[in-house]
């Protein structure tokens, strides 16, 4: 059947199983929006800013595991998506972003609302496409989704000139896709896997260091099984939180700059580090030279470039983490009795770790009146649904959430780890809620990050996305303030948010409910009330202004040089 390019695009989305998209209309996508007007199979959500639209598609993708889709017009619409795309790129989130472009004949002419978005997004996408001929559109869309979701996932931009949306052609969606230069390695090398298991069996002090790859690769169950089978303690990165239940005795929680004392001590003293779907980021390793100094390192990752990028590796395995973990587990099972031996061998190691846990557990000083932010996080966990989804913004509240919430299931924490994008939380929560209308979704943010995308209150209310917004308000850009306190002699340059905002009135102005707690004994009431109200609720907690995120490894120091909570 003959169709125009705009219709073909929508048909492609439908065939890829897309049910929700986030987009903002404009001159070069007006034809696409005209088709969308009568295309009822896809729910379109209109954000109030293109950046938020991309973050929402990102939050949707992180929560559901599906490919997130966002649309923006050419020029400023497209450039507004950049932060969202870069955020998704750093965290390997599968997304397809469709941008309008000026008609092909005008490209390069500095036309109205023209931007070279292919050039601009080249370094922050997994790949991008400019569609020059409507006949290529279906194949390009097939490739875009395939590239976005396979291998190490990532965002793909499809730039669609206005005349291509209007041009007509026969529509046929390709069944398969063939890209000569793109063949991601799925299956780990069997010999390498065997060797890895043998090495792990010999270790006396093993640690599993787990990143976002385990969540992206849907390999949590396999990870949990392997860790338990061999009694190996597990520490996760920020992106890996939720892949291993933090209420399990084997859990060491977060490692790195704001990791637990015991996770950092375990990594610094282990004789075998098994990295799964993690990339040895500087926030994780601290000073590279003294990272896991006594350990042999096994590194499993789907992306070969992640291996040996920052840290020497004794045994690399390129492959899908679920495939590799499944095979490791099978070998461990076959070895059987020896695996028991391995468990025995690590008994003294567990005792050592337990001592560290006892010596410096995660803690903060509770007060009787002022609300401590960590307390709010703990109460949110206690009073929310077990399968609640938590989005965070970036900063102190993000680290407190990572330290104190206690994640037990994958895809329940949505956080900008790699790029550290302030303003991410609220739209990401909005996207997750669109994916799971019945589940409890909250965003925990600071007063700074919330203000970066607070216009999305309108989208949330308009679309009945019942996001619960938690603001830990310290009237500071807290993380920068903390660095200024510790390393810049308390010179709080531009980190005090001097204007006190009435967040309750703000919520009400958008048609949401606003609640506030200023004292410790009000915290539970506000949370309970907030969760019981149907509809979007903003809960503001006035928290201790100069509370610090601890432990902290100063930038560039070794993991053992932690500043601990007194």
């Amino acid at each position, binding site marked *: 059947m003959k169709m125009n390019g705009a219709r073909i695009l929508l048909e492609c989305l439908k065939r890829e199983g897309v049910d929700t998209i986030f987009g903002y209309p404009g001159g070069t996508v007006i034809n696409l929006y005209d088709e969308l007007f009568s295309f009822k199979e896809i729910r379109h959500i209109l954000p109030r800013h293109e950046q938020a639209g991309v973050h929402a598609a990102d939050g949707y993708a992180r929560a559901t595991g599906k490919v997130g889709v966002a649309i923006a017009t050419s020029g400023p619409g497209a450039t507004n998506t950049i932060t969202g795309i870069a955020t998704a790129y750093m965290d390997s989130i599968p997304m397809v972003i469709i941008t309008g472009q000026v008609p092909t004949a005008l490209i390069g002419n500095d036309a109205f609302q023209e931007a070279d978005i*292919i*050039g601009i997004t*080249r*370094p922050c996408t*997994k*790949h991008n496409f*400019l569609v020059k001929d409507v006949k290529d559109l279906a194949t390009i869309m097939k490739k875009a989704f395939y*590239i976005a979701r396979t291998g190490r996932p990532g965002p793909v931009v499809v730039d669609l000139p206005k005349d291509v949306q209007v041009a007509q052609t026969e529509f046929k969606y390709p069944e398969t896709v063939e*890209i*000569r*230069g*793109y063949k991601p390695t799925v299956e780990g090398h069997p010999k390498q896997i065997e060797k890895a298991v043998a090495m792990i069996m010999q270790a006396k002090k093993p640690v599993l260091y787990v990143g976002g790859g385990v969540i992206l690769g849907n390999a949590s169950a396999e990870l949990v099984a392997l860790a338990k089978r061999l009694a190996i303690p597990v520490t996760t990165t920020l992106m890996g939180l939720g892949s291993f239940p933090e209420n399990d005795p084997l859990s060491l929680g977060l490692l790195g700059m704001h990791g637990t004392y015991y996770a950092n001590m375990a990594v610094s003293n282990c004789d075998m580090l098994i990295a799964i779907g993690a990339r040895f980021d500087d926030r994780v390793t601290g000073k590279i030279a003294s990272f896991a100094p006594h350990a042999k390192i096994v590194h499993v990752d789907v*992306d*070969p*470039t992640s291996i*040996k*990028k920052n840290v020497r590796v004794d045994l690399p395995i390129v492959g899908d983490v679920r495939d590799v973990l499944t095979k490791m587990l099978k070998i461990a099972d076959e070895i059987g009795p020896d695996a028991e031996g391995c468990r025995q061998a690590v008994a003294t190691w567990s005792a050592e770790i337990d001592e560290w846990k006892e010596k410096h557990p995660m803690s903060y000083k509770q007060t009787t009146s002022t609300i401590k932010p960590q307390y709010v996080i703990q109460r949110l966990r206690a009073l929310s649904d077990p399968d609640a989804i938590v989005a965070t913004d970036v900063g102190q509240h993000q680290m407190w959430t990572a330290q104190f919430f206690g994640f037990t299931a994958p895809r329940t924490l949505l956080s900008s780890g790699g790029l550290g994008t302030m303003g991410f939380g609220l739209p990401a929560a909005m996207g997750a809620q669109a994916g799971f209308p019945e589940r409890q979704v909250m965003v925990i943010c600071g007063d700074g990050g919330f203000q970066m995308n607070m216009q999305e209150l309108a989208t949330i209310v308009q679309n009945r996305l019942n996001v619960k917004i938690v603001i830990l308000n310290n009237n500071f850009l807290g993380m920068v303030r903390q660095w200024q306190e510790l390393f810049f002699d308390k010179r709080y340059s531009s980190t005090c948010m001097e204007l006190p905002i009435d967040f309750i009135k703000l919520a009400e102005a958008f048609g949401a409910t606003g609640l506030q707690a200023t004292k410790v004994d009000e915290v539970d009431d506000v949370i309970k009330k907030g969760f019981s109200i149907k509809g979007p609720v903003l809960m503001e907690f006035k928290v201790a202004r100069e509370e610090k995120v601890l432990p902290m490894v100063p930038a560039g120091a070794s993991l053992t040089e932690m500043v601990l909570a007194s």
Partner: protein
Amino acid sequence: MKHTIAVLVENEFGVLSRVVGLFSGRGFNIDSLTVAPTNDEALSRITLVTRGDEQIIEQITKQLNKLIDVIKVIDFEAENAIEREMVLVKVAAEDQSRAEVLRIADIFRAKVIDVTPKSYTLEATGTPAKVGAMIELLRPLGLKELVSTGPVVIGRGAKGWKG
């Protein structure tokens, strides 16, 4: 360490900028770069010379392989490859130096492709070492202009591309 890397890519717009952007974005160096279509018109071949320790070269080849439009990357080892570059060089040539320029050209089997009363322009091909040696001999005579293709490289015998 200097490395000559051959990259087989889809012959499409924007591919070269992906390759070059990878180098600039990650702080890798490019000493020289050549690109042209191959016997398969759908493909282009890039030959680039870069430098770095083993770890950097490994990252470069991995990152190149990661690009969707890159089909194959070969980091050629000198003993398995033949490397050639071409230079065009304009040398000042007056009075007694005219004969000296021609002598050097003869030794290096360079061709004279342009003559004026004040200069010779030579064309020379060979390994980068040979061409470099010729340039160094011509330099004291007065180099007016130098243009080089940068090296291209091909595997010996069965080494190199399969199919």
